[in-house]
């Protein structure tokens, strides 16, 4: 332990603690802008400087580690003046458009300016305005608002390891830019939106589709149905000041009805559907490899729910295309079913049905624009809102969200199981699949306490589990005694590590789940800011709680699904499924299919 004093108060902290974290323990929040917990801190914004006795200059507290006997002052005249200067400098070229900015009242720079009593900016603006980058469906960049904190660069390069964004030029002319040009669309970008989730100001955000959704809601000729992803209910509350990890499924349903959606459905329904299709696909692949020795069938099979991962795979590992499950993501399965099965059921033309998704994700905005996602004949999903956008819509409508009563979702596409809930977490899709596959094969429940495959839960980057299949039913005898090896990776940097190990032959798996975002969808690029590991854990915990409280916890038990197969689809991997629920991928490295 190290003894230090902060503002003359003695405190003992573990070795290696930064001044920033030590100060938190005595109730002092030092302001930061570039700091991102747990990541390599650049120490570049200089907002967090403090006075350290005997040091000639002020020290950045986010990267300065305490040493024995250190005397720290966080609020001296020199510190206050320095922070003020830095804020004024940052504001000098920052557009003064707070009222009309996407981040109004949710902006870290605005908050700091308020806290530090900035009443006037002595420095005049000298930068020329740069054009907006609205070239991609998911993300909008406004380089004028950028304060060059480089958080986006850190997540893009070090967490996701995609490196779309990099600092370009130097000095006053430095910008954060994509690829070799000026537009995201001309660069290799997987649209994961992690950059938008960490931006402290309005420089990177999701493309705003709120007005389009209002327009659809206002149109009396349209029936507007909404689906919400499993990760929304564990995070939406944060938009209204509720603690991370507060489950708001009931209040969210009520709010969506008040907003005017004609049917409040659930992506969870489609998540259960995904498990049936994907689980069956896995078993079919296993059979072809193990029994028929079919060399054309590839293992391991990779999940396909995460559109960021799909984009990444198409750009960086197109050789894995045969390995990726042909299942569409739950969002797109929902759209396809809604515009065919459900539209028929209620006697509406698919053209008059509008499907709106609420997703924790910016890549979903990209996904619904893909040409392959029109299997109903029209766009299967019309608009995608992020969690943050839904929060804004609810505020626009003046809804007192926190005090809403709980309501139930509509049948039949609002009916789901606990297995669908956990799609929101890293490891969740795998666990849900195993719950169903194991039971199909053996007729018994998955032999894990509470149905939780604990080795693949949690925030470790790459997780593995092995499951010995015993006591198989007659038709699945070929699986008797087979040890099923599965793995889970979240965050594309971790995915890359795992894939490289697979390719080198160091590891062998049957089934792999990959989520583009750290923590899975609960840590998606469209979730309320700022998603720290602490927040991830809280959301994950909430999701498991939701799962455990359910009557049905396995996808194949979903009663609405049974009806769907009976009335419409026939069987998993059947012809209708093939047409509506499965897709193909493209090699974006050299442009071949």
């Amino acid at each position, binding site marked *: 332990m190290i003894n230090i004093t902060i503002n003359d108060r003695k405190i003992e902290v573990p070795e290696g603690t930064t001044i920033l974290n030590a100060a938190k323990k005595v109730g002092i929040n030092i302001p930061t802008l570039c700091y991102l917990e747990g990541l390599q801190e650049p120490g570049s914004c200089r907002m967090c400087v403090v006075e350290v006795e005997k040091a000639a200059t002020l020290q950045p507290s986010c990267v300065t580690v305490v040493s024995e006997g250190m005397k720290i002052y966080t609020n001296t005249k020199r510190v206050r003046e320095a922070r003020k200067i830095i804020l004024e400098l940052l504001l000098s070229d920052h557009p003064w458009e707070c009222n009309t900015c996407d981040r109004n009242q949710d902006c870290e720079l605005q908050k700091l300016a308020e806290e530090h009593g900035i009443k006037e900016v002595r420095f*005049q603006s000298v930068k020329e305005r740069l054009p907006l980058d609205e070239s991609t469906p998911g993300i909008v960049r406004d380089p004028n608002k950028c304060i060059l904190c480089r958080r986006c660069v850190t997540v893009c390069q070090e967490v996701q390891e995609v490196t779309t964004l990099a600092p370009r030029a130097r000095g006053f002319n430095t910008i954060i830019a994509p690829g070799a040009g000026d537009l995201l669309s001309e660069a290799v970008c997987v649209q994961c939106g992690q950059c938008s989730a960490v931006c402290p100001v309005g420089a990177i955000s999701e493309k705003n589709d709120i007005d389009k959704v209002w327009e659809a809601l206002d149109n009396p000729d349209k029936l507007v149905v909404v689906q919400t992803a499993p990760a929304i209910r564990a995070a939406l509350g944060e938009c209204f000041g509720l603690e991370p990890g507060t489950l708001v499924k009931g209040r969210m349903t009520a709010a969506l009805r008040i907003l005017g959606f004609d049917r409040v459905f659930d992506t969870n329904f489609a998540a259960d559907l995904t498990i049936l299709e994907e689980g069956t696909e896995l078993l079919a692949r296993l059979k072809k490899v193990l029994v028929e020795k079919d060399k054309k069938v590839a293992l391991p099979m990779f999940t396909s729910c995460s559109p960021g991962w799909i984009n990444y795979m198409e750009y960086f590992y197109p050789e894995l295309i045969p390995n990726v499950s042909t299942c569409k993501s739950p969002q797109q399965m929902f759209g396809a079913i809604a515009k065919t099965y459900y539209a028929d059921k209620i006697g509406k033309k698919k053209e008059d049905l509008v499907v709106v998704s609420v997703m924790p994700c910016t890549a979903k905005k990209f996904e619904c624009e893909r040409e392959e996602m029109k299997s109903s004949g029209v766009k299967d999903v019309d608009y995608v809102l992020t969690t943050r956008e839904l929060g804004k819509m609810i505020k626009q409508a003046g809804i007192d969200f926190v005090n809403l009563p709980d309501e139930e979702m509509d049948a039949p596409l609002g009916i789901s199981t606990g297995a669908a809930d956990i799609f929101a977490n890293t490891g969740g899709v795998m666990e849900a699949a195993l719950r169903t596959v194991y039971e199909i094969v053996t007729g018994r429940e998955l032999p894990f306490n509470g149905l939780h495959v604990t080795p693949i839960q949690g925030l470790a980057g790459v997780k593995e589990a092995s499951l010995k299949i015993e006591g198989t039913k007659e038709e699945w005898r070929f699986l008797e005694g087979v040890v099923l090896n599965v793995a889970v990776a979240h965050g594309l940097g971790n995915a890359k590590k795992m894939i490289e190990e697979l390719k080198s032959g160091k590891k062998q798996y049957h089934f792999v789940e990959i989520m583009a975002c750290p923590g899975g969808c609960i840590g998606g690029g469209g979730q309320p800011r700022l998603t720290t590991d602490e927040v991830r854990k809280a959301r994950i915990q909430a999701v498991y709680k939701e799962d455990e409280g359910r009557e049905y916890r396995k996808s194949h038990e979903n009663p609405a699904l049974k009806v769907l197969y009976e009335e419409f689809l026939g069987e998993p991997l059947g012809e209708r499924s093939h047409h509506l629920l499965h897709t193909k991928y493209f090699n974006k490295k050299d442009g071949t299919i």
Partner: protein
Amino acid sequence: MMVKKNIAQILVGIDSNTVLSGARKVKTKLITEISKQGLSDQIAVIETGSIGPVNKGVVIGIYPTGEIYGNMSEEDVAEFVQERLVKGRPYKKRLLPERLPLEVDLSTYDPRRTQYVGRIVLDNCGRINPEDIEEYIGVGGYEALGIALKEKTPQEIISLVRDSGLRGRGGAGFPTGLKWSFAAREKETPKYVICNADEGEPGTFKDRLIMEGDPHKILEGMAICGYAIGANTGYIYIRGEYQLSIQRLKKAIEDAEKLGLLGQNIFGTDFNFEVKIKIGAGSYVCGEETALLNSMEGFRGEPRLKPPYPAESGFLSKPTNVNNVETLANVAPIILKGAEWFRKFGTEDSPGTKVYTILGQINRPGLIEVPMGITLREIIYDYAGGISTGEFKMVQLGGTAGDILSAELLDLPLDYKSLQEVGHNLGSGAILIMNESVSVVDLLKCGMKFFVHESCGRCSVCRIGTRQMYESFQRLEKKIAYPDELENIEELAKGLKLTAFCPLGQSVATPVLSALKYFKAELSEGIKPHKIYKPAVRNQSRAEIIYS
């Protein structure tokens, strides 16, 4: 291997400055003329590095008499040979007041006297042919490396360097022996020795002339450092613009390798040391040692967080020692002649000499090596020959990031301690001397433009602060500055000094704060004496504020 014995030698300074004036042509002409007179076996024409005076065209020296001639043209040569070499009379038309540095007699040497002409770093510059390793060996070159490898332990070398009191000549003045000991104690291998030859400080070109004039001395210093800290690889990181230096260093490395003075089993010991060259691509910040490491590794040349220091985790995350060219040039002489000898030069706190480039409105601009502790007045009036036109007004000490000082500081001794006591720095070794025709605002504005261009852009305060100061200086120049402009500049400069990420960002404040201290009255003339009408709605930055 001795210097070829002739009765006399004509030294022709071939460096980046003199080549522009046709030094190579003059050299050829000298050889033909001397040959015509049948003097070839008595008088040798030798190519050497910078002899000292700059901006005096082609400069040649005569050894051993010591006189120096400048502005020599091809047309002068025949007459010069006739007058000086045949008839033995000084060739007055081109004679310069400077003299070649000759051997030092330490018994009569007074470190405070400026008549001193002996040199440590530049000892061979202008005396030997830098492209001939035999000549370097002839004047005792690589002897220090031999002694180090055969007679001393690495620890003894470090102690010797520490005892000499040598401090880093790149600007910060950190004790060199101590720095070496940090890298030496690291267990991790391989280790690296890096010579920082990214001399980018405007007005400074001492390292260039050292490299051009005596490249082997740097290689020898690096090898000794490598032996001391346990490194087998050295890199010279050099500016892309320094073509002649690169060329001469490359040749020096090749020659040393041929003679086994670099490479495997040097002097028959088990010590191996190779030197490689890395070429920069135009960035001032890369002179900062951690930025230099990033650049060497092929990244943007932005400074790294410290700690860890390079000694612990430097090039490719391995223990690394980075020294400036001039620092390394001091090493071999210290090993050869001892710490005691070295301490006879300079002051108690700052032993040794310092190489300066002196420029500006003075009679004799040039490259000088003088003991630490001599005063600006001595440099200007004894070495630089006084002010060329007008009156002395100010001096910028240590390059564009250096202090701007007024006449009141002329008698301050130039050494690390004395300067520190009054809050100033020695800087890189550039001394820019200016008369009353130069305006402080113009100097500051031009300097700030340089910083705006060269700021790496990583930390907010340097990235935006330099630009805003540049705007301020422009307003001051146009005499439309705000009433509180100077206070704002001062606050901004202090902010930079206190919070910038790297030493270079912090040093941007140096010229600004010293100018505000000594030339406030002149700077105030740029303020427009009008009231500000503050806007009623404070949602505007100052661009919109209306002046009456």
